């Protein structure tokens, strides 16, 4: 545990002093992430049209469960790669935007979560809540981060 803390702490220190060693994926993984996310859409469609969830017999790794795993893994991995791929020039301003976007995404996510918890009292809804929380923080982060970068580029003054 102590070693793990040390490792995290070291990562933190490196982040502050050297922008190159930030723990982010290479830039090209953004497109891979986008591809994975797009691939998951038809899989979801198959799930819905063939009523695969009706095959659920409560067993682990049955057809319904496998489809669930595939869709969730594709979607979350896709969003994760989009969210945490390095910008072409990842400098300290981008790092700052990244952090503040992450903060807003978490704020918004918990607001949505609390509202959802207040207005649900049905057991079945909790599964939807879990699903919502799988993608909501990442998607919110991506949208806010891209919006901030767009705003930054718009605000540039001519030389």
């Amino acid at each position, binding site marked *: 545990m102590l070693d793990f803390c040390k490792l995290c702490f070291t990562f933190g220190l490196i982040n502050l*002093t050297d922008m190159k060693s930030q723990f982010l994926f290479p830039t090209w993984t953004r497109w891979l992430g986008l591809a994975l996310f797009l691939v998951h859409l038809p899989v979801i469609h198959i799930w819905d049209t063939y009523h695969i969830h009706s095959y659920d017999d409560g067993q682990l790794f049955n057809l319904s469960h496998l489809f669930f795993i595939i869709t969730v893994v594709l979607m979350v991995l896709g969003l994760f790669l989009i969210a945490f791929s390095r910008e072409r020039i990842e*400098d*300290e*301003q981008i790092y700052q935007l990244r952090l503040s976007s992450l903060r807003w995404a978490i704020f918004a996510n918990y607001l949505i979560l609390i509202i959802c918890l207040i207005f649900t009292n049905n057991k079945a809804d909790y599964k939807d809540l879990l699903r919502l929380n799988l993608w909501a923080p990442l998607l919110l982060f991506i949208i806010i981060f891209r919006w901030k970068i767009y705003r*930054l580029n718009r*605000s*540039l*003054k001519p*030389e």
Partner: protein
Amino acid sequence: MKNSLRVERAIKNITQAELAELIGVSRQTINTIESNKYVPSTVLALKIARVFEKPVEQIFILEDGD
């Protein structure tokens, strides 16, 4: 905090993009520093000062409100 980055750049006759490349940041960052919208870290300020071969205080100046 204000800065004389634009003037120093004019003296040295380099563009924002060239300065950005010299210190390894994006042109956007140089642009926002020049228009006082972004305060660079100490490391970045020192790197900029090194490019212009001047002390940091000559390029970045504290204002009364700071």
